[in-house]
């Protein structure tokens, strides 16, 4: 009997994998039947990995609390599944490299503008082209901010606050960034000199792959109170920036895959999969890893802050917007591990919550949420694909109880890059989207084919499942107008 045969459907979009083998807690998967069937088919087709088995692995790790969770955009990852959440007791739990991955604090920042879709629709080529030229993207594109090792140490420690102090942003950007744009506990000494050397010209670069910058408009308001709190209204033009900690985070991930591999041996921790290398949270190795990823997370906040500055420069040039008119709705990561307080079995406890391809999604009332959003919960951003919609959702009270306040982050791939590149031609994708009113600006046409809308799952289904489960609540639907890709 494999993991799929053992899955029990306990709700419309809720499945439980009861503990067996080495599992300490159950696995709990929030997904519609179609997603579960697709995961099963992929495994049957000889896929090398299984997201449900990865949930089982997470449920087997020392100190895991309540359940190993997977959200509606679940698909196979490294170690944890994408869309995976695991909380661990501080005293008896572990920090797991596969619970964070290589792209530490990869995330989305949403910027609002005072522009209306109708004002820019006829000028979208010029606006998109200028953003494309202004924001470095793609392999080998260096950022305008070149940093010395000493300055990189400050980025590691201070995150977006450093970039703002250097003149590339305003205090409000920080107020509306998770953690105020600066994760505490970062230690530059926990980060290798190689990671720092790789970072020197990466701050303010978008990267490649699924990273993007999109000019979008608010198509529908679905939750008027929350949309008002977030300053979003129908027809409004917004900018979404999806990128992460770049080479800095990548090298931290690579370094600690090795370092915590050795720690696992030292502490005699049996791991179900090589990517689940870990160290006790309170051990020197565990603390060092958390100090390193806090630095990596700060690198990501700094990166999105610098790109925000570049977007302001571009929109000032093309639309005559004063930089102060472009403001941060919120900035939130979806690959991280953080110490948080949660009520577990009637008791408030500190736990280390790993979210891999999942965002924090705190419901109303949490002190971590900016005051302006506290009554409705903070926003989360669900990326669609180039041709479809994206969503702003919010955290819920039920989500706090069921998933440690976690949310979905995107549609998730349905086709491999190889299959997508065979099925679609980049130029065809660009012209089909152009007919639909969406302009694509990309450095690599093959990359466009690989990221074609048909290569991804339907974002509506993923959003629908998160909403049906009561974990996240849709606030507005966004449509792309111009897409900048690496």
């Amino acid at each position, binding site marked *: 009997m494999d993991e799929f045969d053992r899955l029990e459907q306990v709700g419309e979009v809720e499945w439980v994998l009861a503990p067996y083998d080495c599992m300490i807690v159950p696995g709990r998967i929030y997904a519609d039947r179609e997603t579960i069937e697709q995961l099963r088919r*992929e495994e049957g087709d000889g*896929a*090398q*990995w299984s997201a449900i088995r990865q949930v089982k692995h997470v449920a087997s790790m020392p100190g895991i609390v309540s359940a190993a969770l997977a959200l509606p955009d679940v*698909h*196979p*990852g*490294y170690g944890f599944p*994408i869309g995976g959440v695991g909380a661990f007791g501080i005293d008896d739990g572990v920090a797991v490299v596969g619970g964070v*991955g*290589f*792209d530490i604090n990869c995330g989305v920042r949403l910027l609002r503008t005072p522009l209306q879709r109708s004002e820019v629709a006829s000028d979208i080529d010029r606006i998109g082209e200028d953003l494309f030229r202004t924001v470095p993207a*793609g*392999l*080998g*594109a260096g950022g305008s901010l070149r940093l010395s090792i000493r300055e990189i140490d400050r980025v590691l420690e201070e995150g977006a606050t450093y970039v703002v102090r250097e003149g590339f942003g305003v205090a409000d950007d920080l107020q509306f960034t998770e953690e105020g744009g600066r994760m505490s506990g970062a230690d530059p000494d926990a980060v290798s000199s*190689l990671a720092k*050397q*790789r*970072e020197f010209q*990466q701050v303010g670069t978008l*990267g*490649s*792959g699924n990273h993007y910058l999109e000019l979008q408009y608010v198509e529908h308001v679905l939750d008027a109170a929350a949309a008002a709190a977030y300053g979003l209204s129908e027809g409004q033009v917004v900018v979404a920036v999806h990128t992460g900690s770049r*080479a800095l985070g*990548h*090298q931290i*991930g*690579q370094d600690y*895959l*090795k370092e915590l591999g050795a720690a696992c041996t030292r502490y005699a921790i049996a791991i179900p*999969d*090589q*990517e689940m*290398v870990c160290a006790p949270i309170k051990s020197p190795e565990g603390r060092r890893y958390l100090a390193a990823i806090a630095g990596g997370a700060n690198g990501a906040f700094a990166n999105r802050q610098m790109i925000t500055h570049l977007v302001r420069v571009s929109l000032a040039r093309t639309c005559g917007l004063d930089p102060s008119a472009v403001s941060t709705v919120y900035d939130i990561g979806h690959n991280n591990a953080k110490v948080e307080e949660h009520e577990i079995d009637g008791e408030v406890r500190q736990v280390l919550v790993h979210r891999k391809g999942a965002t924090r999604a705190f419901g109303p009332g949490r002190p971590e949420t900016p005051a302006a959003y506290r009554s409705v919960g903070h926003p989360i951003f669900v990326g669609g694909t180039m041709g479809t919609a994206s969503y702003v959702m919010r955290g819920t009270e039920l989500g706090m109880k069921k998933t440690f306040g976690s949310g979905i982050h995107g549609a998730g*791939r349905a*086709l*491999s*890059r*190889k*299959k997508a590149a065979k099925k679609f031609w980049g130029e065809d994708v660009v012209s089909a989207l152009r007919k639909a009113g969406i302009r694509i600006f990309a*450095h*690599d046409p*093959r*990359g466009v084919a690989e990221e074609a809308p048909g290569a991804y799952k339907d974002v509506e289904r993923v959003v629908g499942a998160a909403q049906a489960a009561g974990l996240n609540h849709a606030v507005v639907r966004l449509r792309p107008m111009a897409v900048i890709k*690496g």
Partner: protein
Amino acid sequence: MGFTYLDHTADIAVRAWGGTVGEAFAEAARALIGAMVSLEWVRPMTSRAFALRGSSLELLLVDWLAALVAEKDVSGLVFARFDVDIVEDGPEVALRASAWGEPLDPARHEPRLEVKGISLLGLRVRVDGETWFAEYVADV
């Protein structure tokens, strides 16, 4: 000697092979760079030497490929030709390699995907008859 990209939902999965383990590692490196740029446009204008040690061939493969990923950011170099020699050294394995290439030029090299890291998933170095195989997945 050669390499192929295997089907993989999110990332780049590689099978590389050669008559020696060193050749398999050289082809694994070509596959890695080939995922990032068009190999045929990379000219052998300059070279770099690498010396690495590992407790197993698999971990040595990860370190070797990760070193090439890092080199792209640190010195800006991408490579297309590799000469790799691997020997057992006590309980460890040691790699000595030369790589020939040039600075990454987005205008000429047709830049593609950025490799974030080399995963431990599906990592395998094996010999089958006369042929060595190196298999890995790169997170992009």
